[in-house]
């Protein structure tokens, strides 16, 4: 199990550092916007009704924006240190998970040769997990109108898988028909289209939502470049051939 152990070791190193850096970037960039949006969310008269009642009178359809599915009975970290600590933990876990996927995929292609190659794999991760799903499902603030969670999760995962498959075909196969097929695979989820909310009405100001999209994209870009670069460095440093 040397290969498995090495993948996990390299990924844990890269994920630990990138996840921690991600936490710092979030606290500088995205979390202030989330907190600001939450003030609009709680100000909404129908917020937190858990979708039990939908406002059918004005819109014809239920306004899912208000159906913020927080279970009031469920444990929630207290604001302040506890919330930040769990954010850091979740970031590091997610970063290690993403790193494992990145390193595993790159082993199929012969393994990362160094930090520079790692950065290109990180850019691929950015395209697969941030750019492509974000086209149809832009980063959303609390209180933004959203479609059904299951539908969005399915579309998100399908889009990430299709983009990864398309990029792999484009990069590692050299035949023109396969390149055409690769672009097709990447385009299909967007032709199908992401699930749309029944209404786009929200109390969250548009400038705030726009700032959030930009901030999430930029933070994710730096995160993925860092994660890929670190993984490439660790792979070449600790798993180098004799």
């Amino acid at each position: 199990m040397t290969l498995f152990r090495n993948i996990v070791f390299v990924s844990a190193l890269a994920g630990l550092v990138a996840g921690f850096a991600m936490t710092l970037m979030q606290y500088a960039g995205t979390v202030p916007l989330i907190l600001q949006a939450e003030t609009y969310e709680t100000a909404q008269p129908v917020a937190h009704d858990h979708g039990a009642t939908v406002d059918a009178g004005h819109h014809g359809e239920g306004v899912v924006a208000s159906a913020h599915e927080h279970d009031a009975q469920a444990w929630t970290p207290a604001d302040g240190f506890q919330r930040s600590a769990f954010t850091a933990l979740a970031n590091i876990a997610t970063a290690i998970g993403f790193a494992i996927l990145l390193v595993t995929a790159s082993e199929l292609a012969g393994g990362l040769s160094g930090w520079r190659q790692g950065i290109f794999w990180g850019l691929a991760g950015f395209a697969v997990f941030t750019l492509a799903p974000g086209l149809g499902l832009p980063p959303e603030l609390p209180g933004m109108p959203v479609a059904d969670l299951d539908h969005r999760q399915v579309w998100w995962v399908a889009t990430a898988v299709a983009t990864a498959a398309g990029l792999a075909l484009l990069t590692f196969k050299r035949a023109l028909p396969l390149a055409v097929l690769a672009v097709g695979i990447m385009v299909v989820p967007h032709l199908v289209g992401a699930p749309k909310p029944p209404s786009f009405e929200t109390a969250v100001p548009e400038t705030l939502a726009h700032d959030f999209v930009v901030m999430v994209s930029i933070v994710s870009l730096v995160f993925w470049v860092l994660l890929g670069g670190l993984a490439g460095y660790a792979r070449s440093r600790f798993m180098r051939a004799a």
Partner: protein
Amino acid sequence: MSTNQTSLPLAAAATPASRILQLGLAAFLGLFVVGFAGFSHISAVHNAAHDVRHSLAFPCH
């Protein structure tokens, strides 16, 4: 793992079948970790990772 840099290259250390098994296991582990942190419907997990889910543009709420 040892940091001994004279260790065998990864590809030579495993048979093709074992290699595929280990890569499969690793991929499964990675998907499980990301899925748990980003996609779990368990409320406590959602609440703990709330800001992360929004900041990474995972579908949330």
